[in-house]
């Protein structure tokens, strides 16, 4: 409640200041065109280089919090707010009903001292302007930065970009020619019919999926039910297969299924004429009379 009231006060002060005290414009920027109304804003220039004295840098990001005179972005950095900071609508440059709270997107205008003099707010992500490196030095922190050994080691990170992963599976030679084969994954809640595969020849099925790099998931092949899921070469139920998708453009994964859970090793393989009753020594059911 206190925080809400203090923000209402801050907004009121900012609004009053905007009307009563137009910011002084440095002479060298007076002719610079900006998207903002000149009557209410100083000419602001987005820049990718450290700001020389007197310049204003605009950085767009998502707010984590605004409290105690600081604005925090999702980078985890806290930046000092100018006591006269204004809050405006990022799209119109005019007043906004949005409050600078968690999840709201903001374009912060830093003055030469590293204080935020303006927060332009939006519910949608805003286009990038200055980079994080340009404003990082303005972040306020009591403790000096120290290296984090967790982040070292030169392990290449995953970019999360979509990678076309194609699964090729070789099925047992006794798999009926009309059998459907599926890929079941933990991502799909282990549904036995999650991803239907296409038969491409007598022994092989194939399916492609876009999967973000860095994704680590588990999977198994089935014939549509867990009773008919794959078995290992030794006839036993094994652990699920797993795959980590790297950063390449495409990825091919070849697997072999040796047995199905519902396969009957001894009964004659009669396809649709298989008998639904215990094996009686009569491979053919009696025809209707």
């Amino acid at each position, binding site marked *: 409640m206190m925080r809400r009231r203090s923000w209402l006060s801050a907004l009121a002060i900012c609004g009053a200041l905007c009307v009563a005290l137009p910011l002084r414009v440095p002479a060298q920027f007076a002719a610079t065109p900006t998207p903002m109304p000149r009557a209410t804003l100083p000419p602001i220039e987005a820049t990718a280089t450290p700001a020389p004295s007197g310049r204003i840098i605009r950085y767009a990001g998502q707010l984590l919090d605004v409290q105690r005179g600081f604005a925090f972005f999702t980078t985890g950095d806290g930046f000092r707010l100018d006591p006269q900071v204004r809050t405006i609508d990022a799209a119109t440059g005019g007043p906004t009903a949005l409050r600078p709270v968690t999840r709201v997107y903001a374009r912060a205008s830093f003055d030469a001292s590293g204080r935020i003099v303006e927060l332009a707010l939006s519910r949608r992500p805003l286009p990038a302007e200055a980079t994080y490196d340009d404003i990082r030095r303005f972040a306020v922190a009591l403790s000096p930065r120290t290296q984090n050994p967790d982040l070292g080691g030169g392990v290449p990170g995953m970019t999360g970009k979509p990678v076309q992963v194609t699964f090729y599976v070789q099925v047992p030679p006794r798999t009926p020619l009309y059998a459907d084969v599926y890929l079941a994954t933990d991502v799909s809640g282990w549904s036995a019919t999650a991803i239907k595969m296409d038969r491409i020849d007598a022994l092989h099925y194939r399916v492609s999926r876009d999967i973000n790099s860095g994704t680590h998931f588990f999977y198994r092949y089935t014939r549509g039910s867990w009773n008919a899921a794959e078995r290992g070469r030794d006839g036993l*139920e094994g652990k699920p297969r797993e795959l980590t998708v790297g950063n390449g453009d495409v990825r091919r994964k070849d697997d072999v299924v040796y047995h199905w859970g519902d396969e009957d090793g001894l009964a004659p393989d009669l396809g649709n004429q298989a008998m639904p009753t215990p094996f009686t020594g009569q491979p053919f059911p009696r025809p209707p009379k």
Partner: protein
Amino acid sequence: VNVLRALLALLTFAATLALGTSPSAAADVSRDPLSLSASAVTFYGDRYVIVGDGNVNVTLSDGTRITGDTFQMDLRLNRFVIAGGVRVTFGARTIDGAAFSEFLDFHRTYFVPITTEPDRWTFLDGDFAHPLLGREMPGDVFALPEMGDEHAFIRSKRALIVPRESVRFTPASIDSGLGWTPTPNFFLNFSKNPNFAQNSLAGANVDVPYPFAGSSHLLSTAHLRYDSADKIFGSVEQHLVTDRSYVVASINPVTRPGKQYNLVAYDRVSPNLGVQLFLEENTFQHGFSRPYFASGYAHAQITEALRSSYLQLNANAYYNSLLANPAPLTYYENPSYPWTPDHPADTSLLWQGFDHRINQLPIYYRLRSGFGLTHNSYSPLLTLGGTTYPTEWYHSVGGSLYSSPLRLNRDKLSRDLLLNLTLDSQRQWFSAPHHIDTMSSGATLSKAFDRHVSAYVGYTVTQTSDHYGAQQLEAYPPTIPTSQATGQTYPGYAAFQGFGTTRSLVASVIYVPSTKISGSLIYRSNSDFPVPIPEPAYPPGPGYFILPSPYGVAPQLLTANLRVRLTPTIQLDFTRAYAFGWGNWHLTPQWGFQIEK
């Protein structure tokens, strides 16, 4: 009946005990539960993200309490962020801050406290008393991915989250597709353990599961189902699961008199030994009163892995009437439930070899053999020459031969024409004077035309022959059957003497323009001897489809399939099939439509 139920209860109890002492139940730091409450807790099923908004209150397993304005957790990445007016309370100490993030898999906690000014603290292994000051943090440590237009599946107020395993929402409103349905709670299991997906329920046309309770090893689910026989009905299913074993029991339907009690169990007793059990009891009973009728089935399978092969023991037992003889009547309650004293059984031991390559040729083989017996003392399995055979012993030898894809031409763009060959043959000898030979051979030509279009043509021939020698006509007397579905007679059967052949030609074209859309067209032509006979599906009645099984398959079948993936977890699957020349049904369209989530 009581014996079977007692066995089910005993197995369930034993499994519970076994699971309770399972090594996999050992505590794992990253799986310590955390409880979340907020003004609004929302679960986004497509992204597996939980968002809490307003008055967020999170309690960790060590008692640490974090409050804030917003909570967001990616269940797959196993990390969460709390942001906005954050207050962390551990022990007697309270610290305010802007954001708190926990990477559960790495036991790292990142915090932006505000004392006199902001700072950056990192905690290792949940040690909140000793922060590492100023330590660099991962760049996305406090990222709050935009949910935007993502579809919310569950709305709630509280959630108990067990990382990498489950979430219990209390209460929970579920998007049932027709609107938000309020429920007392919803148990979301997203474990990587596939044993939670084992299913003991019989099939249904529509199934809406409602998991209402669970834990690391348990899952209780109520099902609302529909099928053409029972219409809308309810079922229940219980899972008891470890990494190497499971017991799944169900009652289906629980709201109809015709019930099916099922139990599926599996245990990987050792790295080389697996035991599987399936028990089924069918009853007709109102509620859980004494059944009018009951039948049962039991199947056990023990598999022992050897160095380059395995042994598998299979046993089946059928109990057609579990209740006492209703004499002087010959049926229970009404003639639909006749008394059948038969309880046939069969047991077999199979040896299955691994695949082996023949020298350096692209040809592989696998061998199998086995023996067993089948027994039915009430209805002899076979009567031949005046001799009855209530028990038949048998042994068999068989093998498969297949090639890897053989390139028939070379193409720079890998558009080779490939040939696959398969052959499977088996002979089975019986203690009665006959043996059965089965041989199935096939050849497939396949070709990928470009990245999107591929096709194959396959031809298979399966020959099955039941040899009785001089007693052949006694075993297979000439018969002219009549289809109960169409009234058509089949004089060609008069020539059938126990030697059958099935020939199938399959041609398929697959078109995959993108990873989100795929389509296929499959044409299948069958030429069988003896010819297939259409029969009505069970139970017979108006509106039921004609089933090809078990008297052969449709002579010609054309199937079109289109699959469209709308979201990462929802796919529409359209299938339409035409059967040609199938009795009087020259055209039998079948529509299939499936939403997978």
